[in-house]
């Protein structure tokens, strides 16, 4: 009885807190959209930022931020937020369209080191499915397989039930593993967008300049972070050190 009361109290307390935070985010989102339509893109970005500071984000919010930065000719930031939006809205054609348009304005054109097959497959799947979606589909299949197995245990050994358990369980486990792997990969593979017009890579933190320069909007991989310096890897595999403030993580 006491436990039930405690759970009820937590639910009663937590639900309004979340609703209040979402309301604040909604309000800033709508205000940002209004300012965007009036052409005040800087103020619109500020409102979108306040929505994030309220503790909530969304694919549409990131997408609109990307549009505002694009209108402000801040190519790096626009690509950064389009990439963020693409994570949450992988199937939206307008997100892909705007990201493609912004990428077309990048002055860098690095050759791309062929990634491993598994990574290519994971990236392609990730362009359509989010980790949560992959896991959810896998979980539903897994529960279906578990139900079939339960009936098989309770009602006797039916070949049909056994086939159903295998047929649902194997793809379910695959989806679940994909979802968890994609989630792990997103956390441990830090991608970033260069924000400065031109950044020269250094051979070590605070070291000598290399002859490699990278321009605004180029997506790099952050390999190592050490105090104010980060080692980044360009799409062609070249690595070098830059100041952490010269890029924005996706």
């Amino acid at each position: 009885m006491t436990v039930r009361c405690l759970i009820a109290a937590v639910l009663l307390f937590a639900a309004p807190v979340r609703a209040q935070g979402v309301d604040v985010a909604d309000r800033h989102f709508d205000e940002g959209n209004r300012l965007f339509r009036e052409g005040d893109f800087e103020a619109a970005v500020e409102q979108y930022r306040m929505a994030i500071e309220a503790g909530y984000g969304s694919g549409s919010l990131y997408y609109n931020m990307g549009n505002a930065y694009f209108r402000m000719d801040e190519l790096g930031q626009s690509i950064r937020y389009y990439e963020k939006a693409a994570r949450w809205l992988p199937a939206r054609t307008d997100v892909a369209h705007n990201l493609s348009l912004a990428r077309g304005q990048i002055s860098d054109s690095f050759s791309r080191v062929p990634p491993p097959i598994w990574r290519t497959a994971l990236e392609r799947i990730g362009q359509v499915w989010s980790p949560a979606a992959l896991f959810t589909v896998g979980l539903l299949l897994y529960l279906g397989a578990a139900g079939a197995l339960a009936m098989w245990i309770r009602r006797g050994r039916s070949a049909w039930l056994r086939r159903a358990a295998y047929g649902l369980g194997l793809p379910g486990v695959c989806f679940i593993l994909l979802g968890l792997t994609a989630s792990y990969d997103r956390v441990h593979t830090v991608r970033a967008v260069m924000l400065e017009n031109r950044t020269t890579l250094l051979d070590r933190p605070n070291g000598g300049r290399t002859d490699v320069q990278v321009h605004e909007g180029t997506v790099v991989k952050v390999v190592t972070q050490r105090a104010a310096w980060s080692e980044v890897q360009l799409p062609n595999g070249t690595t070098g050190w830059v100041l952490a403030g010269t890029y924005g993580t996706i």
Partner: protein
Amino acid sequence: MIDVRLAIFGMLAFVLTVPALAQDVAVRGSVSETTIGTQESVVFSVEIEGASLSDVRTPSPPDVSGLVLVQRTPSTHRSMTIINGRLQQSVSFRWTYRPQEAGPARIKAASVAVGDRTYSTEPISITVVDQSQRPNGRNARPQWPSAGSSTQESPDNAVERARDLFIRAVASTLEARLNEQVTIEYQLFFRDGVQLRQSRLAGSWDAEGFWREEFNVDSRPVPETRVENGIVYHMIVLKRVAVFPTRSGDLTIDPLEIETEAYVPSGASDAFDRFFSMRGRFESVSLSSPPVHLRVRPLPDNAPGSFSGAVGTYAVEAGIDESDVEVGEPVQLEVVVRGAGNLATLDAPRFQPPAIFERYDPGIETSIDRDGRRIRGSKTFRYVLVPRSNGTYELPPVTLTYFDPESGRYETSEAALPALRVTGSASPLAAGTTSGGLPIDDIAPIHAGAASWHAVDAPPLHRRAWPYAALALPIGLLLFLYAARRRESALTDDPRRARSRMAHPLAGKHLRSAQEHLADGRSRAFYKEIERAVTGFIGNRLHVAATGLTRNQIDALLVSVGVGRDDRTVLRNLLDECDRVRFAPLVPERETMEHAGERAAAVILAVDEAVKARRSEPASV
């Protein structure tokens, strides 16, 4: 282009060897040479231009040091020239001096009275060297190499030629900011009697690290008269160019080189004679200006965010051709930037119309004024704006931030725009969109609907507990189901064990039911449940049919499992009491019934312990 201009210069120099045009009275003192040998002489001239000849009084020779005046009375030369329809008169007085000895000499200022005013010339320094250091046959005259010696020119001749004819590069400044205009003027200096023809640019003039804009220079120049180190020269401008540094650091502008055919009369004693001398020949010569070295500093660091590299002085004007339009009807926005600076590379001023406007790339028109000494003009940006929604819109101002080198500050020029009223209703876009309705050359519009929010600080999926709980729960349930199934199977296959496991629950159930009957005062039902609890427990525990057992059969069974006599007696008495109450009109006391319940529980415990003790005996043996 420059070849043509220089050729024209050459032809002009062929016929024009006249003094410079002057508007007011000008008095110049000059010498024929500033370096002479001990056996040579030097001619000092005072020339008065722009004054009526009758107003000029013959001046006295100036004081000198290290020199000796040959003749006190000067030779006088008068000339009248009509230039551009205006009459110019000039008169010059000349004295000849000889050096006393090798070393420095000096001609001090000469005073000339013109009307009621007195003018003075500048002092001139002369260097007297030993005659052996002078070119052979030289006698205080500028001398040109003799015919046929152009390819084997002696160093002395080269020195003399450089003194008679040279190009000077004059920069407006030698230290500039990035993208700040620096004007370089190339001036050709030549002395009296020097004639040029067939002039052309030699080599390629370049200014690496600079954006260049050429100024217009007069194609029929009138030479200016200049006195350089006491020697009179004529000067024309060959080329004037504005350079804008595109990077900082120490930069160099190449020399300007020309090849020409030059003629300098030899042996003549003065300019008049030199002009009409027929003793010289045209010789091919190359002339070169010195390179220009500039130090370029970067722009200050405190540039505003709107700064895009413009350097100079600018003003922005802007306007729209319509203030009331229909949806979809184009509006032309004209932005004009006027001022001085590098207009060719000037970026469009900052302008961000409201998002409902489609903005097309502007048409750009640049007009540059190349006269004077600063590149100035205007650059016009014509945008086409197409409103896609109705309403009244405040267009943001057009702003241009630039760095003003004169003030050393970043300045912003701003042009306000009027409000634009858009009427009508929006029609679907047919052209300029993809099959999916997305604009071809522009970004798709913002998302306006309700956002699907997620907590930004939420842990990623693989670090949350619920996915693993969701995976573990079905496994747990399946294990439980499997275990239950196994248990059911085991009980079905072993009735003795099943009954034994059911003995306690059933006995407990009957005893609880008996307690309820006790509470309700139903004695017969109470004793019936007591009897069923006891006999049922014994039957289940010992795996015999409880129904129909006699007292003796029960006693024998209990003996077989080792139940003690006292417990068996208690059981027998209890069962007898049950029979009495159930089948006789007897209502027992409540305490008696409670006692019967306690005895039943005690008997059940005693039987259970005895059975357990019997079952454990083989294991302990």
